[in-house]
């Protein structure tokens, strides 16, 4: 009996500690619900343009509207995982998220997004007509606009003008891939330690397969034909992949199988490569103040073979979660973040080279932007305006997308295939072996859509 009462006292003591601790943490965890409608929770990819947005929000948007914005910035892969978890479960923790034109159509189809057609897009000062048509179309589903671009990008070829002059070679304004391969051979080693070209070799659908799919498109290949039959081991797909792998093995960067966007950016900035085929978004970093290669880079159109152009189209855009608690405030936030007004704000406060551009026609016509981006804006504009996500190759496609196929299964499938192609770059298997495995994977996905 005595023992029991002691035990009970102990238990009571322990329970009190627990209750006090939980109560304390409850106090700490609770948000203020009274001001909830004045708060927008935003999930964003951690790219430099988003960091600028985070920095400018409190002093501008919050000051003007009284709406507080809580940001969560994540690396790209983590963001995709988090956004997929958040939107598929409609958890409602975030009101707004940055999604790409790869996710928006399928998220919209699943009913996870709020249409912006009646709010942001209808606002006259926002000027929806100013958004580049290809970009607006890629964020539209069933005639409804589901996201507004924050910035856009295409792809082009960047090269060191000084190194080309030293080697006595000239870059055509619309090169073919064969010309690029020849030039890579000629400039390789002209400067000691400098390779001919940097191409992504890192596994991942958004890594190696972003540039490689555009190469496949222009060589006449495709992931899927109109009837959803897979074309991964087709002669054109194989020829393109062999070309890419051989070029990077012969004249590409050191450690190519592990090189992604960041590694290639470093390589070009540090004088380790003379050319780089990648995103137009790189221009801001390459031409930024303090960049060792500022003013030395030339920009030309994405190389082609059988198509007239081959640049990709990509955008990080703001979308509103249907389960988000603050729909009105979320729409107001997007109206500001994707607006001309915000571009002007960045231009005036941080410099025109840091403007989240390449989404509005008016930006390309802005004299301040033209002056700051003189080296690349025309090429970027041409690249973005010339793309056609519905028809990026030589044959009709079953789903839109240039460097991807806009179906939810593409990310997993292409990532698996990319691991084998990356192994081929590392010399561990042949391209034919890699693509044979890829064909089987792709056909499984295609069969689902055939039914």
């Amino acid at each position, binding site marked *: 009996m005595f023992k029991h009462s*002691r035990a009970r006292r102990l238990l009571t003591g322990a329970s009190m500690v627990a209750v006090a601790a939980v109560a304390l943490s409850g106090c700490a965890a*609770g948000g203020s619900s009274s001001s909830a409608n004045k708060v927008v929770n935003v999930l964003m990819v951690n790219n430099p343009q988003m960091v600028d947005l*985070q920095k400018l929000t409190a002093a501008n948007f919050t000051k003007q509207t009284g709406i507080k914005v809580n940001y969560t910035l994540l690396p790209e892969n983590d963001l995709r995982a988090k956004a997929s978890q958040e939107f598929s479960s409609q958890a409602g923790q975030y009101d707004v998220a940055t999604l790409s034109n790869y996710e928006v159509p399928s998220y919209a189809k699943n009913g996870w997004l709020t249409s912006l057609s009646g709010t942001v897009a209808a606002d006259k000062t926002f000027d929806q007509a100013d958004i580049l048509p290809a970009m607006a179309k890629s964020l539209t589903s069933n005639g409804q606009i589901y996201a507004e671009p924050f910035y856009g990008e295409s792809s082009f070829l960047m090269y060191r003008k000084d190194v080309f002059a030293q080697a006595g070679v000239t870059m055509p304004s619309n090169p073919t891939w064969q010309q690029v391969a020849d030039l890579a051979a000629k400039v390789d080693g002209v400067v000691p330690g400098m390779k001919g070209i940097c191409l992504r070799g890192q596994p991942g659908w958004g890594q190696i397969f972003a540039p490689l799919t555009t190469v496949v498109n222009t060589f006449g290949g495709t992931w899927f034909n109109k009837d959803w039959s897979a074309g991964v081991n087709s002669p054109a797909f194989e020829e393109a992949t062999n070309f890419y792998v051989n070029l990077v093995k012969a004249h590409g960067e050191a450690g190519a199988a592990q090189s992604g966007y960041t590694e290639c950016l*470093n390589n070009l900035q*540090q004088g380790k490569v003379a050319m780089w085929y990648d995103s137009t978004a790189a221009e801001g970093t390459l031409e930024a103040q303090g960049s060792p290669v500022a003013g030395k880079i030339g920009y030309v159109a994405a190389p082609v073979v059988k198509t007239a152009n081959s640049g990709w189209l990509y955008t990080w855009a703001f979308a509103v979660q249907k389960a988000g608690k603050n729909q009105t405030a979320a729409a107001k936030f997007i109206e500001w973040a994707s607006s001309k007004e915000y571009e002007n704000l960045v231009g005036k406060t941080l410099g025109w080279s840091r403007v989240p551009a390449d989404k509005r026609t008016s930006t390309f016509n802005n004299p301040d932007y033209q002056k700051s981006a003189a080296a690349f804006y025309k090429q970027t504009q041409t690249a973005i305006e010339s793309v056609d996500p519905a028809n990026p190759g030589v044959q009709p496609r079953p789903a839109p997308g240039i460097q991807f196929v806009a179906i939810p299964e593409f990310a997993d499938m292409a990532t698996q295939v990319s691991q084998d192609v990356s192994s081929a770059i590392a010399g561990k298997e042949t391209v034919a072996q890699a693509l044979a495995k890829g064909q089987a994977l792709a056909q499984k996905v295609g069969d689902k859509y055939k039914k």
Partner: protein
Amino acid sequence: MTSVVTRATSVSKARAVGSVRRPRRTKRGALLGLVAWIFGLIFVTPVLWMILTSFHSETSAATNPPSLFAPLTLDGYANFFGANTGASPWPALINSAQASIISTLLVLALSIPAAYALSIRPVRKWSDVMFFFLTTKMLPMVAGLLPIYLIAKATGLLDSIILLVILYTSMNLPIAVWMMRSFLSEIPVEILEAASIDGANLLTIFRRIIIPISGPGIAATSLICFIFSWNELLFASVLTSTQAITAPVFLTSFVTSQGLFLAKVCAAAVAVSFPVLVAGFAAQDKLVQGLSLGAVK
């Protein structure tokens, strides 16, 4: 006389043996010392490199081969504290501190009585109970992630410190019970019996005998639970968003796929590791005592 001589001979023999052995022991000791230093350096070098890189500029940090003598700057730390981003690390650090400290206190409050019932006054089938505790660590944590997410969503606990406290407490409790049991087993039962005879009740025995004697063990257990909670990333990254975001999740936000980030991430990693390092140094003596106490057992 004979015995004295014999003794002297044996002493000289012993000395001779000693004089032969001593250098061998010294050589072995030196060799072991060298191996220990090499392993120590292998473990410490990445940390030192991280600290050095945190004081470099992004461009210097990205050079290959890495530069030892690049100019030093505090930009990485300024960035961590929000100078260039507008994002303060304090909410994340405070959330981590709350979740770690509260869960550690709860773990101690629950594990010490449990360990008492498994060592000093063992319950029936105590070894089965110990094994049960161990089995809870056998399930891969990621396997429980989705059910926990769904439960948290249904109960409205997503993005709250309470959820993290519950999770960290349950994650660390089995380890703490095992550790505390091994420390409490070291306490001679005779002392407890003597205290009982002197009229001390259970609470007094806990307060005046068990807790002071097992102090180093409690310190070691607390520190390990604190470190595990502070460093936890998987659950925090999935279950928190804006209100309860923790320091490790905040740390990952410096990684970007567009641009350089190595110096920023190193500075953030040093800053986030700082509280754990301070706690570790503060409890160093107790920690060594505590861990060796368990090791002897």
